[in-house]
């Protein structure tokens, strides 16, 4: 193995180890602290302490698993968007998925469809909205069947703003929707159950490998238009496919965790700095870093909720993970942006 390949393997190993550690810690953290050895036993040993097993398997595993899966999906989605837009500041929200999904979530919660709003169906509604939002962005930005990154970007910003306004409009009509939408707007893993994990699993299970396999095509997408076509890449088809995959991954993440920001932007950028610009390395690392970041953020979110430092906050289930990401991620993000705009 040559030098860069060894370096990459070392990085991936380190990231993987870090993710594992965080995962185990995550499973241990809660109103009852379970030390790592017991967590491990609860996971693998049938004869371990039954309380431990109930807590770990029933309550904490779905959330930890979701943090893992959602982190992976967002990391990859961001990397794909950055390739399509050929810009390191692109992120999953630009697909229109978040805005569309949130709008539909709000409509659903406000009961505007005249249907009762059973919680299990929420992800389905969100997914529908997400797909609609993405379709809107694509339709509004394409011209003669081609996707131009520039126009896509600007259109995405406008369409997103439009959808967000409509969302606010709906929220005004419904107090209930107003209250419950906040965690969705910012992203939260509180109270997630196995049902949610089962939804996320196929998305991640299909989407992530597809994205990773297409690394070579992703590389070509980053060349100038002429070069990539001269190499035989069906440019517009490839762009559309990458966009659709990014949107799909973002939609999947959205439907279970709400609109989690920061990860889709940060993970691919850090991955690129560490592993280089080749997608065959940068994509897997982005996936890994996505998990790491979300696990870390959710750990912080959970531990803060145990003893909330803010005097004015009322009794709450816990800090939404998106809030942690927004507050602590902000300075990091600024540094990242600065680096990427040389």
């Amino acid at each position, binding site marked *: 193995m040559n030098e860069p390949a060894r370096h990459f393997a070392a990085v991936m190993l380190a990231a993987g180890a870090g993710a594992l550690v965080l995962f185990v810690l995550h499973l241990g953290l809660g109103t009852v602290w379970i030390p790592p050895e017991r967590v491990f036993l609860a996971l693998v040993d049938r004869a371990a302490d039954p309380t431990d097993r109930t807590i770990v398997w029933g309550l904490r595993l779905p959330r930890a698993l979701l943090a893992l899966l959602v982190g992976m999906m967002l990391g990859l989605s961001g990397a794909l968007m950055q390739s399509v837009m050929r*810009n390191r*500041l*692109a*992120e999953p*929200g630009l697909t229109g998925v978040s805005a569309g999904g949130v709008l539909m979530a709000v409509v659903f919660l406000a009961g505007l469809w005249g249907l009762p709003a059973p919680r299990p169906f929420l992800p389905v509604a969100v997914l529908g909205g997400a797909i609609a939002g993405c379709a809107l962005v694509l339709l*509004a930005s394409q*011209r003669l069947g081609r996707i*131009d990154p*520039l*126009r896509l*970007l*600007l*259109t995405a*910003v*406008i*369409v997103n*703003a*439009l959808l*967000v*306004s*409509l969302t*606010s*409009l709906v929220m*005004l*009509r419904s107090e209930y929707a*107003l*209250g419950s939408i*906040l*965690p969705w*707007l*910012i992203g939260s893993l509180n109270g997630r159950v196995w049902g949610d994990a089962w939804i996320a699993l196929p998305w991640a299970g299909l989407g992530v490998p597809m994205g990773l396999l297409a690394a070579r095509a992703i590389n070509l997408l980053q060349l100038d238009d002429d070069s990539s076509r001269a190499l035989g890449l069906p440019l517009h088809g490839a762009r559309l496919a990458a966009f659709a995959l990014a949107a799909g991954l973002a939609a999947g993440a959205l439907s279970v965790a709400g609109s989690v*920001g*920061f990860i889709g*932007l940060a993970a691919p950028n850090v991955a690129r700095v560490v592993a280089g610009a080749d997608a065959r390395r940068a994509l897997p690392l982005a996936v890994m870093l996505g998990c790491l970041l979300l696990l870390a953020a959710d750990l912080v979110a959970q531990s803060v909720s145990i003893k909330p430092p*803010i005097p*004015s*906050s*009322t009794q*709450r289930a816990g*800090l*939404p993970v*998106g*809030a*942690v*990401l*927004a*507050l602590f*991620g*902000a300075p990091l*993000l*600024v540094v990242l*942006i*600065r680096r990427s*705009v*040389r």
Partner: protein
Amino acid sequence: MRETTAAVPGGSSRWAAAAGGLAAVIAVLAVAELSIGQPMIAPERLPGVLFGESGEPLERLAIHELRLPRLILAVLGGAGFGLSGAILQVVLRNPLASPELLGVSGGASLAMAVVLLLNVPVVFSLHPVVALAGGLGASVVVLLTSRGARSPVEAALTGVAVAALLNGMIVAVISLAASSGAVQVLFLFTVGNLSNRSWNHVELVCPWLAAGIPTALVLAQAANVLQLHDDLSSSLGARTLQLRALFVVLAASLVAALVAVAGPIAWVGLLTPHLAGLLVGKPDARLLFPASMVIGALLVLASDVLAKVVIYPWEVPVGLCTTLVAAPPMLWLLRRSSAGLV
């Protein structure tokens, strides 16, 4: 630079016609603004209620204490945001610049959110100062991180990223404070709102605009010089960096007081200069600045009327309507130019 399709080639008679047309539209909207609400007041009776002694006490109260200040605030708000956007687009040579994309709106909102939600004791008359500090701080961050951007779109992307960041932080702050009223407050800080504004608010805003608008008009020629390439304008004697900084501060201060009382009125700053440019025909700041003020006022006034009407008898925050009103022309402008708004 922006497309210079001279829409008014016929000289002063065309100017007069355009000005007359705009004035008429504004007059109509003003009448609507004063008439609509609860109670509805027929337009014919307005002069009496406004200038004379007629009308029910409730009507007189509505007109004199609520709708008149609201009308003035809408006009000032539109003029302020429109002018701010025009200044930024001219001076930063970026057709995608605007108070939102420069972080001014977001930073101002965040500062206000922190002050109000965490109960920091700041006297009401100093709120615009807080907003200004937040706005300037955020714009410094954006400008520093986007230095070295290879194109206006890259610079704008930086602004989008930072704006999203700020938005996330605002939502995070709100979720931390977490009282039931806090979610209502969400609208104040992320979307502009003119309802229930009174003369206090107008008084707060007036001095800022009274100082800022004449300054901008007087310095318009200097802004023109800054449109040239930096080396060229330096050789013409302009101290480009300081001048640019001065203009950014000016743009931020025009908007600061407005954000402090009404929240950020989205999209007006971005769209108005483009519409003004289409009207005026050439990128001359001396014409563009006043035109942006007029068109901005028109836009916000129209949006505010719409805000009162769209789900009558309830009201919608004006910022939502500006988005709904601005999105179609922006999408149209985007499709029209062959390579984005640049």
